[in-house]
């Protein structure tokens, strides 16, 4: 009896010790440093853009802040590293930062061949075109024979070539190294249209001389699912980042916002109770605290709030929810249940 009890106690201790040691090394490192290191873009309005005081704002930035809030209860415990499209993946692989939140499209080659893991889709985007309103063009299919400006070295050129070839249309392409040069050429009349991700078009419209003289065409010619990415090899860290985004989407679905979070703590809805950590220990399974989602929602907001503040009705971009609406509203944002 005594030996059986002793064996059972020892086994339990061993299992507890083992599970404690199988935590995420990245999370341990982040906790010991006291801040999260996040890779963002070199300035894209609405997604990651430094304001006049040098503070980073945007949808991608808010995902970093949400992860920091979940870990430290402080959304400002983040160091941002600005990256260009060329160096973003090598910087993540080499450990310069632990989370890449930089309007990066999830493609097979990137997921499979670059040693990265994508942790969900924060923005369903597609490639679009912007034209001058007085050119009379209302759809992409009117652009036969046009001159198109774009940035070099991204998937944009490939998508344009594929689309125009498959629809039997001709075009002339001009590829510039920098977005500002491409926009200048388009604005001055050298090109008939400028093409990039549709969210980038709304941002570009703000930079043009007369924002109202331009029209973003309605068609999207490619799928560009944008989302955060982490290094391969640390599954627990990947889970943490993935479920941070899912918590924000679930919060919007359940009607929990940063404004009503305190009342929601008294809710009797079992889904809300599980989300906010009143029931269950999902936070601890991630290596965080029970109120991990409360921290996120209170300090940063749910997905809808973050969307509207950065790229929606509360921002100069004025992008409609469209495909980024919740699945219950006809969109594609669908988070697995927290149970």
């Amino acid at each position: 009896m005594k030996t059986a009890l002793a064996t059972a106690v020892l086994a339990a201790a061993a299992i507890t010790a083992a599970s404690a040691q199988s935590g995420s090394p990245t999370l341990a490192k982040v906790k010991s440093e006291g801040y999260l290191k996040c890779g963002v873009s070199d300035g894209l309005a609405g997604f990651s853009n430094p304001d006049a005081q040098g503070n980073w704002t945007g949808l991608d930035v808010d995902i970093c802040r949400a992860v920091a809030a979940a870990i430290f209860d402080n959304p400002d415990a983040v160091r941002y590293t600005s990256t260009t499209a060329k160096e973003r993946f090598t910087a993540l692989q080499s450990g310069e930062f632990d989370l890449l939140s930089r309007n990066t499209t999830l493609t097979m080659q990137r997921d499979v061949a670059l040693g990265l893991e994508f942790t969900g889709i924060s923005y369903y985007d597609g490639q679009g075109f912007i034209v001058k309103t007085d050119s009379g063009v209302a759809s992409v299919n009117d652009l036969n024979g046009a001159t198109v400006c774009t940035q070099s070295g991204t998937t944009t050129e490939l998508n344009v070539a594929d689309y125009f070839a498959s629809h039997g249309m001709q075009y002339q392409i001009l590829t510039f190294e920098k977005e500002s040069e491409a926009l200048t050429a388009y604005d001055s009349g050298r090109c008939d249209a400028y093409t990039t991700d549709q969210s980038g078009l709304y941002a570009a419209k703000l930079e043009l001389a007369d924002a109202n003289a331009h029209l973003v065409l309605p068609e999207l010619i490619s799928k560009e699912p944008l989302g955060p990415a982490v290094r391969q090899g640390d599954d627990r860290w990947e889970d943490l980042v993935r479920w941070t985004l899912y918590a924000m989407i679930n919060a919007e679905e359940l009607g929990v916002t940063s404004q009503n979070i305190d009342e929601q703590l008294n809710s009797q809805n079992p889904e809300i109770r599980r989300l906010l950590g009143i029931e269950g220990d999902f936070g601890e399974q991630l290596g965080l605290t029970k109120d991990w989602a409360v921290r996120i929602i209170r300090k940063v907001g749910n997905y809808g709030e973050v969307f509207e503040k950065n790229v929606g009705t509360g921002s100069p971009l004025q992008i409609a929810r469209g495909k980024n609406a919740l699945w219950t509203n006809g969109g594609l944002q669908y988070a697995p249940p927290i149970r």
Partner: protein
Amino acid sequence: MSGQDDVAARLPPPGVAFWGDPRLRGFVFQAIVLALVVWLFWTMASNAGDALKRSGQATGWSFLWNTAGFDIGFKLIDYTARDRHIDVLVVGLLNTLMIAGLGIVLATVLGFVVGIARLSPNWLVSRMAAAYVEFVRNVPLLLWILFFYLALIPILPPVKQAISLGDTLFLTNRGLYMPKLHWTEGAIWIVVALASAIVLWVATTVWARRRQTATGRRPPDLLIGLALVIALPVAAFFATGAPVSLEFPELKGFNFQGGLAILPELVALLFALTIYTAAYIGEIVRSGIEGVSKGQSEAASALGLSRGQRLRLVVIPQAMRIIIPPLTSQYLNLTKNSSLAAAIAFPDLVHVFAGTSLNQTGQALEILAITAAIYLTISLTVSGFMNLYNYATRLKER
């Protein structure tokens, strides 16, 4: 005997151990340094190979035969998005060679003019040439390229309000559109006729020079040559039933279709490269002319030669020996500077192959190695030709 002296010279002095022999020491040290250098390069290469394997990135040359998937805005051969990366390389290379070739010719002409103008006794001309040189060469080339491009586009009218010359030539901010020659069957004879006319012109010049040496009177070889170059191709044109037709540009929708288009990117790049390199060439020409001893010019004037004849017949031929080596450097500079075309969307080799192809395939090492090798080949060829010319014009002493 001399054989024994040679053998004695090769042996170390008597009484000195073998490690005291300076020739042996030199040999050993050179061998060690060579081994170190070889080991260094081998370590770097194998390190790079290991790192690439570990990070899981693709290596190898097979990407050259994959579909490129993107279009190019200016191409001298047929190319579509379904062609391969190796075709991208060829298109970029042809564009670079075209820019380099045109740039070298134009810059040389302008450079010689500027250099000679700076030495003119006319005060205004020489001061203007000096101001041109000092101003142009002290502004970075990239700024010149951007300036000409950004200044050119707003000046030119949009497509709908194109300036047209008799409805055949159109000037817009998308380019200069002109009629294109449309070759059909039998057009090869015109090319053959032109080639033979040029050969005959050269022969005429040689014959005229001989007549001048023999009799002192020179037949009008220039006129004869021009007449040949014009008459023979025209005769061939009519003889083969006019196989060449003109394709006129027409405004269809957004752009002009058909005809030959000269893009503003090309013009801006060529213009900037030409004036920038010409400023340097002008200084080289001036230094070459000033390097010819004054006695030559004085003797030429004493013989009654005018200033122009003095320059053309006496000074410049001698100055060429001083001019050619630095001129070669400027040609190579121009060729490599053409890679700045990326700033204004002109698809040269670096922009389209070491830029777009590199980003799409991710194989930086291979692509950059190929591009560097190509520039190296072009540069070695150009300097090889120039050195040949230098060798041919060296002072031959008897």
